[in-house]
């Protein structure tokens, strides 16, 4: 069920870096509660006196994204306008992350799929653990990405590569993600959060 704790905001002890934690392990699925909480949190985030934000998942994975069946049921159900409204709200929340006035880094371990990847794309930088896998698999489910994926991906990986990844829906491992420009660095899984913090310290110095 939708749970308010699917997403939480934490401050590092020194108060300089905030962490947005996708906290519904193991998959950190983005359900209605997640998007509801996110919409509220982005308003708080804007005015936080921090030097940067790290977005990451609790446990092994970043996020498996939204549940496809729930999504489809909403759209083909009785109130498609409501589904469209929710999608626009989610897109606005991601855009609010993209517009934060300080550096943002997605620290990605394990699965980073669908709207999970769209959230990571809304961050200024992406640091990946060596075990990370990325995909926008929506077209495989007779859908397409709806939270900025098709708009943000081309500028990172180029038009041709974006066409290929979006239409095939194929999975990309961390090494390839680095090669094509989808992520900025690949690090050992244990160093993921440290690397993300370091990146912020470096760019915010």
């Amino acid at each position, binding site marked *: 069920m939708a749970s308010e704790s699917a997403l939480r905001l934490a401050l590092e002890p020194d108060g300089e870096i905030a962490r947005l934690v996708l906290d519904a392990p193991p998959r950190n699925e983005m359900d209605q509660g997640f998007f509801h909480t996110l919409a509220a949190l982005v308003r708080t985030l804007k005015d936080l006196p921090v030097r940067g934000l790290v977005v990451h998942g609790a446990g092994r994975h970043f996020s498996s994204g939204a549940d496809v069946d729930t999504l*489809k049921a909403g*759209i*083909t159900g009785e109130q498609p306008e409501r589904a*469209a409204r929710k999608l626009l709200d989610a897109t606005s929340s991601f855009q609010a992350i993209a517009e934060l006035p300080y550096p943002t880094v997605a620290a990605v371990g394990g699965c980073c799929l669908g709207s999970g990847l769209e959230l990571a794309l809304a961050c200024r930088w992406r640091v990946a653990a060596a075990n990370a896998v990325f995909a926008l698999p929506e077209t495989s489910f*007779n859908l*397409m990405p709806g939270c*900025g994926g098709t*708009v943000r991906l081309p500028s990172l990986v180029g038009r041709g590569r974006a066409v290929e990844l979006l239409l095939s829906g194929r999975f990309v491992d961390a090494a390839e993600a680095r090669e094509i420009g989808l992520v900025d660095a690949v690090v050992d899984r244990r160093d993921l959060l440290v690397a993300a913090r370091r990146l912020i310290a470096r760019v915010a110095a």
Partner: protein
Amino acid sequence: MKLQFTPGADGIGTLVLSNPPNNTFDQPLFAQRSLMESILNHPGQKALILQGEGRHFSHGADPEKLREQLQSHSFQREMDGGKELLGLIVDAPIPILASVRGGCLGAGLEIALCAHFRFAASSALFGFPEVGLGLITGFGAPLFLDGVATRRAAVDLLLSGRMIGAAEAQGLGIVDRVCSGKTLDDDARGYLNGIVGKRTVSQVRAVMESIGNARRLPLAEALRRETELFMGVARGE
């Protein structure tokens, strides 16, 4: 130059640049805009292979015919029209793969660079020979379109006019895959089929439009339009 289009039963059509033996462009406006539009929007098609007739992709403009036309009042307009044709390829509603054999030179290379993907036979040759003729490229040499080439490579190719082989072109990011001449056609079709084979026509068009919107529209508008496209695809429109 003739454009010979054959739709594919598998949704992957073929567009052949035909003016043998070198498939040169006799004039900058090398096809009617409406013809190019109808080819790119052909019903039921999900991808397109762009190739040259026979041994070569295209050697670009015919320099002698080009010099004759330079005197004409309508030359600037013709060039603009030609660039618009290339723009249609860049913004095509379906993915386009340039399948390159033999020479892919000058305007031929410029049109290939507008495609989303470039596969080359190992014997293919690429280059901008215009400087050797006392000219420069006329269609904008879209080397930076997908961030394919570095500035260094672009300056090198455009100013030296030197020809490079398929392997070097791949190293520079201009070519995505080098194939044997024997397997090129199958490799090109197989690759596109892997991308669009299981997708519906409306999915392909929606994704392609949205990718293009990222470049064409202000961000907020592109994001809003993506949601509309998403809803359309989800409802099976």
